[in-house]
């Protein structure tokens, strides 16, 4: 069974396409992360999936049914899907009244409302604030109450727009652990957007990358704005900074552009290359500034004049033993670099 199916779906604002998805299927009971830079269309997509925004064209299916733009029908769907906003707002009144709101509009009995409210506030660690006015709460507390308010409804789908943005580390952990827990215990399908690739991949079963409103295969990291200097040979120099440039075959560069967007695939960067690797690519030197585990892989941050990320398997990590602060060689092969027009550059 497919939870959501999107076909040729477009959303436009003032004749500008902000969302353009050819095909996407989302499975139930899983956690999906939606990763992309600012303006990539993450919020628009979540609003469409929450039935709060209507696509300008294309088809959206939910739970096997084609979604019609009939307000009564949309209202019935909204009762199964809840959007947890990036900057949630609480209604005037107490924390308890806020958490009870969704249950009250569903005409759920007072006893059940009370029990569920207390349960959810305890889940997000806000049980001591039940009778407090919402006006005095901090940003992190507001997010936790808003999460409890959404979870109290036991939705089939929980959509979260950057759930950990603008909150401290402790609150981030509480929110992320809560999401994981309800997915495991209640089988709630979760789709959440984030800027942080590592956070997304740590929590999610599936990752969706969004760039300029479209789904992308390119991971949103190692992206640079470059000035292109065409050489007399078949190579073009991509200038990342004043002192750092990368050579690419001219046929890999879109014709007639002076400024481009360069994406360097972190999986393709070679740490400590052997001489034979170095024929078709660029050799650089840099010092390691970051090492972190990302699932079964190790992510290495290396400063070569710009900060690059590369990914190593555990086996390669054990063999190459990168250490923080060390200077290491690396090799960026041609096939690990994609250059596109700069007007696609969002951030």
């Amino acid at each position, binding site marked *: 069974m497919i939870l959501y199916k999107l076909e040729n779906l477009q959303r436009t604002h003032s004749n500008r396409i902000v969302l353009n998805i050819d095909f996407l299927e989302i499975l139930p009971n899983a956690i999906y992360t939606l990763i992309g830079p600012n303006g990539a269309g993450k919020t628009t997509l979540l609003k469409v999936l929450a039935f709060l925004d209507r696509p300008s064209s294309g088809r959206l299916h939910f739970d096997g049914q084609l979604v019609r733009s009939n307000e009564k029908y949309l209202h019935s769907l909204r009762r199964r899907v809840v959007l947890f906003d990036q*900057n949630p707002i609480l209604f005037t009144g107490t924390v308890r009244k806020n958490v009870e709101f969704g249950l009250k509009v569903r005409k759920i009995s007072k006893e059940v409302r009370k029990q569920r409210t207390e349960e959810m506030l305890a889940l997000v660690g806000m049980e001591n604030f039940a009778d407090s006015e919402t006006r005095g709460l901090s940003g992190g507390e507001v997010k936790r109450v808003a999460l409890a308010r959404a979870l109290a409804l036991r939705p089939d789908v929980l959509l979260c727009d950057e759930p950990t943005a603008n909150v401290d580390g402790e609150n981030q952990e509480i929110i992320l652990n809560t999401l994981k827990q309800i997915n495991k215990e209640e089988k709630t399908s979760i789709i959440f957007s984030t800027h942080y690739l590592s956070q997304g991949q740590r929590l999610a079963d599936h990752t969706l990358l969004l760039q300029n409103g479209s789904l992308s295969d390119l991971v949103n990291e190692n992206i640079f704005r470059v000035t292109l200097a065409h050489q007399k040979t078949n190579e073009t120099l991509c200038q990342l900074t004043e002192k750092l440039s990368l050579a690419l075959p001219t046929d890999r560069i879109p014709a007639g552009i002076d400024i481009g967007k360069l994406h360097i695939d972190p999986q393709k960067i070679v740490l400590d290359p052997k001489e034979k690797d170095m024929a078709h690519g660029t050799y650089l030197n840099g010092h390691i500034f970051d090492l972190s585990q990302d699932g079964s892989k190790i992510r290495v941050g290396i400063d070569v004049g710009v900060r690059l990320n590369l990914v190593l398997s555990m086996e390669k990590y054990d063999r190459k033993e990168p250490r923080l602060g060390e200077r290491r060689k690396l090799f960026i092969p041609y096939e690990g670099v994609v250059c596109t027009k700069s007007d696609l550059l969002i951030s």
Partner: protein
Amino acid sequence: MQSAFLLFFSFDPELFEIVTVSLKVSFGATLIASIIGIPSGFIIAYSVFPGKRLLLTCLNTLLALPTVVIGLFVYSFISRRGIFGSLDLLYTQKAIIIGQVILIIPVIMTLAIAAVSRIDSRYRMTALTLGANRFQMAAVIMKEARYGILAAVIAAYGRVIAEVGISMMLGGNAKGFTRTMTTAMALEYDKGEFVLAVALGITLMTFAFGINMLFHFFQGKTRHDTV
């Protein structure tokens, strides 16, 4: 002036009667205009339709409508030869209320539109995603905009209690029936009887002061809420 204060504090029956008529008529007009103006203001604020901007300009223009123009307009409908002449409304409190409702509907509507438009759009979205239907969502917005809407009602009440043109033209200033504070003051002034006129003036100013205090209190609440 001293006599006027004495009259004011002696709870003179004539003065009491005039004040009662004034309050009754103003309250009735404000109540009817609120029932019409607040929901209309909400619908206009939350709807997108062609000509919305023009409608808002018209409503703003109507804020400056002179009371004598409304008096004349309503008179043409309810006078004996008017299309509602058979209802015998002219020179009754109902006639004053009709005129005053027309006077303050634009006031309530424009201020209600402003109050509702100021409410963060996230309230609407949050109510909908939590499963509220349109009416429940409207109730949420109204609750959040309550101080702004109350301020609109108070402003309208202040406008009607102090107007003289409509009350004089449509009420006729009949003693004990349609004599309001403002029409009585105009009459007493014409007669050269300043004692009752000044006593009524003091009463009116006291009400105006009270209303303004309330208005500022609720405006302050609105600002505090939006911080």
